[in-house]
C-alpha cells in the first residue's frame, strides 16, 4: 500500500514538469490566438474579440458594444481561420516529430518526404477531375490516399536504391516530390481553367478557406491520431535507438513503423486538403522543442503540438500583415523561414 502511494507520487513528480510546460504553452497559445484575431486589415481590440467569442458561446454575457460587421469578422472569418492554424500547425508538428523517430532521421518532414505533394495530388484530382463523389469528405479522403501512395513510393524507392541513410532518404523524398508535383501540375493544366486559379492559390498554402462547418474534420483527425501517438511515446523513444535494439525490447518494428507512416499520411493528407501545402513546420518545431525539453517523446510530442500551433498562428499573422491588405499565402512564409532553418540545420549537422 505504502509503495503504491509512493509510486503514484513519483508519477506526479514526472508529470509536474510536463504539466507546467503544457500550462505555459496553453497560456501563450491563448495570447497568440487573441492577437491573431485582432490583427488584420481592420484592427479589432482584444476585449471585443473575447466579448464576441464569449457571447457566441454563452449568449448575452456582455452588452453588445460592437458593430455587426466586426462581430462577423471575428466570428465568421478570423476565429475559424485561427483555429485552423492551430489544428494544422500542431498536426504537421507531431507528424514531423513522429516521422523523425520511426525513420531515425532528424531531417524527416512531411513536406521534404513528398507526403504533402501526394496529398496535394489527391486533393487536386478530387477538386478538378473526379468531382465530390462522397460530398465534403471527398477532398480530405483523396488527399489521404494520395499521401499514403506517396509515402509508399518513397519507402519503396529508398529500399530499392538502398538509400537508408538520413540524407539519402531526404533526397529520395525530394525526388519523389518533384515527380508527384509534376503529375499534380498536369492535372491542373488539364483541368477546368476557371477553377485553376483557386486551386493554385490553395496549393500555395493558406488558411483563408477556413469555415466553421469544415473544422470538425481536421480537428477530429488531429485528436484521434494525436492521442494514439501520445500513448506510444515509449515506443517512439525506443525506435530512435535502432531497429534491432527496439526488436529486443519486444517491439514489432516493421509493423509499428507502417502504422505510424499511415497515421502521418492521414494527418498530412487531411491538413493539406484544408490548408494547402505548408512546409517545414514538421522539420522546425521538433528540433526547437528538443533543444528546450530534451529528446523524450513523452515531452517532445505534446510540446511540439503546442509549439506548432503557436508557430503557425504567428506565421499567419505575418502572412496577413507583410503585404496588407493583401493576404499572402502562408506556404510562402513557412517556405522562406523553413528553408533558411534547413540550411542552418545542415550546417550544424555536418
Amino acid at each position, binding site marked *: 500500500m505504502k509503495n503504491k502511494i509512493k509510486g503514484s507520487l513519483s508519477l506526479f513528480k514526472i508529470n509536474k514538469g510536463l504539466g507546467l510546460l503544457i500550462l505555459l504553452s496553453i497560456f501563450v497559445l491563448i495570447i497568440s490566438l487573441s492577437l491573431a484575431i485582432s490583427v488584420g486589415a481592420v484592427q479589432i481590440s482584444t476585449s471585443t474579440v473575447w466579448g464576441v467569442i464569449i457571447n457566441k458561446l454563452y449568449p448575452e454575457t456582455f452588452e453588445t458594444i460592437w458593430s455587426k460587421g466586426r462581430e462577423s469578422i471575428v466570428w465568421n472569418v478570423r476565429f475559424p481561420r485561427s483555429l485552423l492554424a492551430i489544428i494544422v500547425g500542431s498536426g504537421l508538428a507531431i507528424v514531423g516529430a513522429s516521422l523523425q523517430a520511426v525513420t531515425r532521421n532528424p531531417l524527416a518532414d512531411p513536406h521534404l518526404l513528398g507526403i504533402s505533394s501526394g496529398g496535394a495530388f489527391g486533393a487536386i484530382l478530387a477538386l478538378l477531375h473526379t468531382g465530390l463523389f462522397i460530398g465534403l469528405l471527398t477532398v480530405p479522403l483523396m488527399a489521404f490516399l494520395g499521401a499514403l501512395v506517396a509515402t509508399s513510393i518513397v519507402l519503396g524507392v529508398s529500399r530499392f536504391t538502398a538509400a537508408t541513410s538520413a540524407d539519402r532518404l531526404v533526397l529520395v523524398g525530394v525526388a519523389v516530390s518533384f515527380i508527384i508535383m509534376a503529375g499534380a501540375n498536369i492535372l491542373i493544366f488539364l483541368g477546368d481553367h476557371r477553377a485553376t486559379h483557386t486551386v493554385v492559390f490553395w496549393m500555395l498554402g493558406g488558411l483563408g478557406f477556413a469555415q466553421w462547418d469544415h473544422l470538425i474534420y481536421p480537428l477530429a483527425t488531429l485528436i484521434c491520431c494525436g492521442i494514439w501517438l501520445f500513448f506510444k511515446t515509449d515506443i517512439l523513444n525506443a525506435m530512435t*535507438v535502432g531497429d534491432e535494439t527496439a526488436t529486443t525490447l519486444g517491439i514489432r518494428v516493421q509493423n509499428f513503423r507502417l502504422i505510424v507512416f499511415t497515421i502521418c499520411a492521414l494527418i498530412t493528407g487531411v491538413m493539406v486538403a484544408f490548408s494547402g501545402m505548408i512546409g517545414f513546420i514538421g522539420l522546425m518545431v521538433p528540433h526547437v522543442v528538443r533543444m528546450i525539453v530534451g529528446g523524450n517523446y513523452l515531452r517532445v510530442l505534446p510540446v511540439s503540438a503546442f509549439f506548432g500551433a503557436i508557430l503557425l498562428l504567428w506565421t499567419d499573422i505575418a502572412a496577413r500583415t507583410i503585404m496588407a491588405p493583401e493576404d499572402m499565402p502562408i506556404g510562402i512564409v513557412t517556405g522562406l523561414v523553413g528553408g533558411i532553418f534547413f540550411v542552418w540545420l545542415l550546417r550544424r549537422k555536418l
Partner: protein
Amino acid sequence: MKSPVSIDVNDISWTEPRNKQKILHPVSFNLDPGKILGIVGPNGAGKSTLLRLLYRYQKPSTGVIKIDGKDIWSMSAKKVACIIAAVLQEQITDFALTVREIVALGRTPHKQWFGSLNDLNDEEIIENSLNRLCILKFADRQLNTLSGGERQRVMVARALAQETRLLILDEPTNHLDIRQQLEVLELIKDLPITVVTSLHDLNMAASICDEVLLLKEGHSLAFGHPDNVFCKSKISEAFEVITKQEFLVPSNSKHITFHLA
C-alpha cells in the same frame, strides 16, 4: 534477479532471402542455465547472424531455438523481450535522449498500456542499473556527449534494467580501454543469468566462458569447454594462423599466441 534459462539450439541455419546465400549452416548446441557461452571465429564467420537468430530479430530458415524448453517463435515478441536482452553494436542517432532515458527503455517490455511513465519499482531498477555500471554520475547527460566506452556501458545498463534471464552481447569489449574491458567482463562473470557473447579475443573467451562455439564461414567447427575447443589445430584451421599454446610466468596460466608463418 530472475533465475537463468537453459538454451537448446537444434539445427538452426540462416539463408539470406535475397541472394539465397547460406550465411549460417545448421548448428546445434545446448547451454545449461547460468553458463556463459562465447561465440568466436574470424570476421564473416556468422557470429552476428547466429546472435540475431538467438535474440529473435531474424527467424531461422531451418531449426528451432528453445529457451527453457519453449520455442522462442511460439512466444510473442514482448514475452521474449522479458526473457532475453541484447547489447548490440548499433550506432545511435542523436535524438537528445539522456542516459537515464536510454536505460529506462529497458523497462519497455514490462509495461502495460501507457508505457512512458515509470512507477517506483521501475525507478529503483533503473537507479540500480545505473549504479552497477558506475554511470550514475552522468545519468542526466545526453548520450552524444559520452565517449564510446561510456556509451557501451549505458547500453549494458539498459539491458540489465530489462531484468531478463538471458543476456546476449555482440562484441561487448569493442571500443573499450583495458580497464573498461576488464570491468565489463567481470560484470558478465558475476551476473547470475545465462550469457551468450561474441568475442574477438580468444584468451579473454577462455578466461570467462564455460562453453565456446567456434565458427568459420558459417560452419560450426567445435563446441565445448574452452580447454577442448581451443586446441592448436582447431584455431589454426579457423583463423588460418599458426598457433602456439604457451604458459604465462609466474601465474602458469595458459595463453594462446598467433603467428603468420
